[in-house]
């Protein structure tokens, strides 16, 4: 064997040995060090805004618990950029688990990424905490006990806005959802809800993720003579749709109804967005003492107002810290037990983690984009608030009773 060959084999063997040590062993060695939370988040690419929201929340959380930590141990966030791609997300998550030894994964941006990463978590024996992902399947078909969803899901958002629309004079709706798990789930839920309320769905379309020209869909929506168009489009796609619909003069004829009414859209679309309604996972305008405090701290640190996933991710982290403290350890199985059927006092109201599918029961909101001279962009005004029992689906399903 020549020297070079030997070196290659030696290096390969070394790498294999490091990766080959069972994860639980490396974990025990790490006991007593910092509590590590892995964030395989979309930090670049078209959906970077979501990953960056998760990161902003983590930064504020780190600042808030500085000196205290969790169980007296410091908290370390490890960020990895997935660029919004499911395959990359799995690779980065695997790196976080196997190399960095994290026991908690969060901050995953897209539902497509979440479905891919969550599927691996039982094998890795790590907790996946969703604070962003909407796909109903995550707490239904694809659910397992390592998965926790702190945020409002897509079907829950669809439920909240459907309850609101049931009372409104609008009768005919067009549904437009991005062609992936979250878009299709949300449109499915919305269709069921709205039909149950004796109203009509007059058309449905699923534009591909990343559509940059909605002209064809706008033409169809106009021809359908709908009163409102239900939109389950992720960040950038929604911004482009709203801009273009405004230029076509469509927003006056057909009211935009967003599955998630986000600040990101309101900032980019501006005044053309005023009048759009929708559900919100977390409207920063909620008037509770806890939230007022949070918004102020957030604005002081980042210079912007918290968007939906800033709020939801912060709540997730705070809740996770609470259950780790309650469990007295960061052992994954003990944390799962401590979290099940536990309550948490969130920014906008009470949260309850039900044991049967780890979906957090929480308030649902119907909101409208309005102008307010105090803010540099339109803001969500709360139209209606629904109690958790009304907007949370039956266990491990996407259906409501």
């Amino acid at each position, binding site marked *: 064997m020549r020297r070079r060959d030997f070196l290659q084999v030696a290096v390969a063997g070394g790498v294999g040995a490091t990766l080959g040590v069972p994860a639980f062993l490396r974990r025990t060695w790490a006991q007593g060090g910092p509590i590590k939370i892995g964030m395989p988040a979309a930090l670049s690419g078209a959906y970077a805004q979501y990953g960056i929201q998760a990161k902003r929340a983590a930064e504020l959380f780190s600042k808030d618990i500085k000196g205290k930590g969790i169980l007296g141990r410091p908290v370390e966030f490890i960020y990895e950029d997935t660029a919004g791609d499911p395959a990359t997300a799995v690779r980065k998550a695997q790196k976080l688990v196997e190399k960095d030894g994290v026991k908690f994964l969060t901050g995953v941006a897209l539902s497509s990424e979440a479905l891919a990463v969550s599927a691996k978590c039982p094998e890795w024996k790590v907790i996946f905490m969703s604070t962003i992902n909407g796909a109903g399947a995550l707490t239904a078909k694809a659910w397992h006990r390592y998965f926790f969803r702190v945020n409002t899901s897509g079907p829950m958002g669809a439920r909240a806005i459907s309850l609101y629309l049931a009372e409104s004079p609008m009768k005919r709706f067009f549904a437009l959802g991005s062609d992936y798990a979250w878009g299709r789930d949300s449109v499915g839920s919305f269709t069921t809800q709205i039909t149950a309320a004796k109203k009509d769905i007059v058309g449905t379309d699923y*534009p*591909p993720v990343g559509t940059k020209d909605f*002209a064809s869909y706008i033409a169809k929506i106009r021809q359908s003579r709908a009163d409102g168009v239900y939109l389950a489009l992720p960040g950038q796609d929604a911004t*482009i749709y709203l801009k*273009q619909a405004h230029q076509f003069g469509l927003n006056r004829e057909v009211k935009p109804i967003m599955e998630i009414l986000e600040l990101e859209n309101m900032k980019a679309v501006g005044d053309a967005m005023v009048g759009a309604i929708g559900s919100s996972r977390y409207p920063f305008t909620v008037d509770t003492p806890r939230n007022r405090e949070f918004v102020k701290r957030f604005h002081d640190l980042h210079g912007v107002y918290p968007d939906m996933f800033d709020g939801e991710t912060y709540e997730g982290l705070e809740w996770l810290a609470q259950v780790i403290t309650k469990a007295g350890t960061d052992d994954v199985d003990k944390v799962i037990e401590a979290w099940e059927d536990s309550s948490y006092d969130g920014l906008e109201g009470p949260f309850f983690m039900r044991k049967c599918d780890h979906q957090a029961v929480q308030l649902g909101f119907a909101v409208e984009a309005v102008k307010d001279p105090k803010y540099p962009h339109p803001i969500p005004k709360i139209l209606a608030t629904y109690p958790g029992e009304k907007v949370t689906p039956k266990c491990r399903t996407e259906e409501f009773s």
Partner: protein
Amino acid sequence: MANLVEQLLNALALAGLLFLVSAGLSLVFGILRVVNFAHGVFYMLGAYLGFTTVALSGWFWPALVVVPPIVGVLGALVESSTLRFIYRRPPIYQLLLTFGLALILEESIRVLYGPTAKGVEPPVQLQGAADLGGLLYPRYRLFLVVLSLVVGAAVWLFLRRTRAGLIIRAVAQNSEMADCLGADVARVRTLVFGAACALAGLGGVAAAPMTTAYLGMGISVIVDAFVVVVIGGLGSIGGSMAGSLIVGAAQTWGAYYLPETAMVIMYAVMGAILIFRPWGLFGEEE
């Protein structure tokens, strides 16, 4: 009838936008023999610089004039400082270089502008929808159609009717022979690369009011632009125009008439064309 007209206009507007991007991509390939992965990012840069210019001046029109030359100069600098040295190497080097450039530029833009998309208002004269005999159609999209036609005609005339255009075509056909005949090939390459980037920048400024300036817009457009160039034939301006029309029509009509196929229809069309003309509609057999 109004519906057919609307569908036609939709296809033309998208085609116009695609043409502004793919023309430069095609030119660079024709003359430099480089598949420029960074082309989409120059388009994105155009959109963001357009946003800045509009924010500073309060007007849209200056952006259309100021931004393309800036992007063009940047492109020329990139060519003369990096690409120039690796023309003789295998194509994988150029691919890696332009791909790396795309990543660097895109991340720089994200660091500078942040993750939130930047909305750009169309000029006052082009806001809202025009009434075309009962059909409401955005004025700005009509403008896009006209703009791309004017630019297309200008580029074509320049290449066909001017002495500089003649030299460029000579370099495209046989760069060594052109070099022997006294053409400054290195300079031609730098200028063409710069001009192509300027076109992409113009496309970006023009796209911003329609799509906003956002991260990922470069990647999203470059895929379409590659399809356009492959359909039209690498290196041909006429081909870019034809390819843009075909892709624009496939995407808008596909989304309208066959929504379930919106994702694949563009590639299906490309495949069909390549079966009969592997070198593209206007390309030359090599």
